């Protein structure tokens, strides 16, 4: 009986093994066929795209040069390739007249309608392409169509929508962006900064945005402040100095102090910077030394000499760089001063930074 059970058990096992093997082989075959099909489809698409580019590239160049080329009908299958090429040309163009030529051509072939169709599709790729197109077309009526995409779950879509909105109506787009900056922690702040920089914001718009940030700064958490503070680099010093002063208050945490010190640009902030040169957290002292290099006066030379003996290498390094920034004396005079320093670390770091300057 026991032997019979064992035999039936091993028969079942062998059956399972066969089944696993056969199913795996069938799945392997199916996957390989899918890879082959993907390859085939990619090659077919590539051929079609090549033909489309060969047809439309010269026409688009002529349009950009202000000519009025003969325009063939745009096949529905070629819409995406056409829009991609059209956008690439727009990206590389400088000058209003070239853009107008391309926009006229877009109107002739119905690119706006094609972009709206692409915007309605689910695929992120289509929506991305549509947003780029609507950005360059700059139709005021598209603002309301694009604005909801600022709340899309995908950060790249949101930022492409923001770019489009800034192109269509900067003044209306600025508050829309700001209201979402706090909550959308997934938006890379580097890209937001690039977007604002590329948007050629006017003085009034920048001041408006600075005021909006300033008005809410006391409500932001440390994490939010750390995220948003690098944005201050795009504003005028006068617009941000009062805000930075508040952020340099003694009760702030080191992360905020370090980030705010990077944005300290006005002489009014000098007392804050000097105070923070002796802060217990070394990243704060490092940023304070750098800020002192930008804002300091000759009487701060001794303070920097003292910082060159700091236990932290970065504080010593930044202090030496600040000392040699030209605000605290000539390099020769400072080198001679360095020879008289009693602290070995201070001498070494000064020697290092002087050599960097000579190299």
């Amino acid at each position, binding site marked *: 009986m026991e032997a019979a059970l*064992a035999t039936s058990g*091993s028969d079942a*096992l*062998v*059956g*399972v*093994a*066969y089944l*696993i*093997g*056969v199913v*795996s*082989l069938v*799945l*392997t075959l199916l*996957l*390989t066929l*899918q*890879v*082959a099909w*993907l*390859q085939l489809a*990619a090659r077919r698409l590539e051929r079609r795209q090549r033909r489309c580019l060969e047809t439309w590239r010269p026409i688009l160049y002529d349009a950009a040069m202000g000519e009025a080329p003969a325009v063939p009908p745009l096949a529905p299958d070629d819409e995406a390739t056409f829009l*991609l090429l059209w*956008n*690439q040309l727009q*990206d590389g163009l400088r000058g209003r007249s070239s853009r107008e030529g391309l926009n006229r051509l877009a109107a002739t072939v119905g690119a706006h309608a094609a972009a709206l169709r692409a915007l309605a599709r689910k*695929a*992120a*790729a*289509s929506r*991305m*392409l549509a947003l*780029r197109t609507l950005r360059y077309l700059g139709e005021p009526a598209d603002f309301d169509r694009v604005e909801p995409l600022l709340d899309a779950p*995908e950060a*790249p*879509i949101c930022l*492409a929508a923001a770019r489009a909105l800034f192109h269509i109506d900067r003044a209306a787009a600025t508050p829309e962006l700001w209201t979402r900056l706090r909550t959308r922690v*997934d938006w*890379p*702040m*580097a*890209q937001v*900064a*690039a977007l604002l*920089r*590329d948007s050629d914001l006017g003085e009034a718009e920048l001041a408006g945005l600075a005021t909006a940030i300033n008005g809410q700064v006391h409500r932001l958490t440390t994490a939010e402040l*750390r*995220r948003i503070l*690098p944005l201050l*680099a795009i504003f005028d010093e006068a617009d941000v100095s009062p805000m930075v002063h508040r952020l340099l208050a003694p009760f702030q945490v080191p992360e905020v102090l370090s980030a705010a010190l990077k944005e300290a640009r006005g002489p009014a902030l000098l007392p804050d910077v000097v105070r923070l040169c002796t802060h217990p957290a070394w990243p704060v002292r490092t940023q304070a030394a750098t800020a002192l290099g930008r804002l300091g006066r000759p009487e701060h030379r001794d303070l920097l000499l003292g910082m060159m003996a700091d236990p932290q*290498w970065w504080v*010593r*390094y930044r202090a030496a760089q600040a000392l040699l920034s030209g605000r605290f004396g000539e390099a020769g005079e400072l080198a001679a001063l360095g020879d008289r320093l009693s602290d070995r*670390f201070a001498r*070494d770091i000064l*020697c*290092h930074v002087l*050599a960097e300057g000579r*190299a």
Partner: protein
Amino acid sequence: MTGLAALGVVPWIFLGYFVALQLTYVVLDLLALGEIRRATPPGGAAELPQSYSGLEPPVSLLVPAYNEAPTIVAALWSMLQLEYPSFEIVVVNDGSTDATLEVLKRELDLRPFPEATRISVPTRRVRGRYRSERFRNLRVIDKENGGKADALNAAINSARSPLVCVVDADSVLQRDSLSRAVRPFLEDATTIACGGTIRIANGCRVSEGFLEQVGLPRSWLVRIQVVEYFRAFLFGRLGWSPLNAMLIISGAFGVFRREAVVAAGGYRTDTVGEDMDLVVRLHRTFRLSGTPYRIVFVPDPICWTEAPESLRVLRAQRMRWQRGLLESLAAGRSLLFHRRGGAVGWLAFPVALLFDALGPVVEVVGLALMVVAVVAGSLSVPAFLAFLLAAVGMGLFLSASALLLEAMSFHAYQRPSQLAALFGAMVAENLGYRQLTSWWRLRALVLWLVRRPGRWGTMERSASWQAPGGPR
């Protein structure tokens, strides 16, 4: 229970182990699929103007060099052309016995430099520090030989940037490698390390240090490794990344937050698997201290490297990798099932231990016992073939799914002949190659258990894919 009856249990254990192993890989495969969809930018996104924001942190490229005289200058030339706003290169001549330092001095116009260095991690004695007169962002440290890990520690001491990028001197990088690998640090301030997909350069055309055309190597041994790399990177690592449980970033290319590396104690010099060891220690340091952190993987193929073309060199490489794995797991064992271990301690670590470290034992011993069972008559030949079919079939399925991930994402191998070759390599990998590498890994395990010291061995490089080029 008699000995023969006990042999009858072996197939059950063998099959159960394989099913568990393959199911784990299928789950990783599915995770990788989701991640690749998320990580691949929506079409057209890559076409957007990629202007720099000005917020990109500076990066120090750390390049350890030991007897690299023939190739070091070409490698540095390509690194100098990387597209990134601010970076410096720190080359460490690790006591080379050839003319590496002389070549560097001559070609880069090196001058001694009085650098005031922080000693964040201890290293062998530094003999000299130099700065290039030709390239202001390039420095060279000359030190006594201490191995790759020691050289990297010396470079970390000298690095000035908050991010350090560890690069092998023979790595072929994409021009935008740094931009891609730094992106996760910009997106999330808690990112402390980022690895990328490493591809095999054999068979590709490389000119002046940059990849010009992707191709497949002629050698079947290397083709099999191409498929292996797909599996290792496209779902081996990509699958663990969303769980923040990746245990290794390849030593050929990885970006780290310098402070995090110093906090973990730098590279360990008494292991041959210093790359994995560092990542395991980073996990341990941050997990056990409760500090939020992310170790991420970008699936973009950002680095191409030369694979061994002979069995002898491949054996040395695989034995070294296995030993490195064992040393890293042993050193980081406190993470295993630790209450703060998270996905690393409760998933990645046990999987690495069970399937990667002990896998060769089960595979080789299991196979040998099954053969014995067939000879002894306690297992029929059809049953043996059925188990073999299951093992090979599942291996093929996983290789094919890695191939699919590649075709869905980067689509580097586009010709039908290349697909056919990869399919052939997939079959060969599961019929002989895998068993051979398991045998080598088992030997490495035994040697490690008997405390035989590990060696790095010598990688023989043909660099047949490398067209001439260099500084002009």
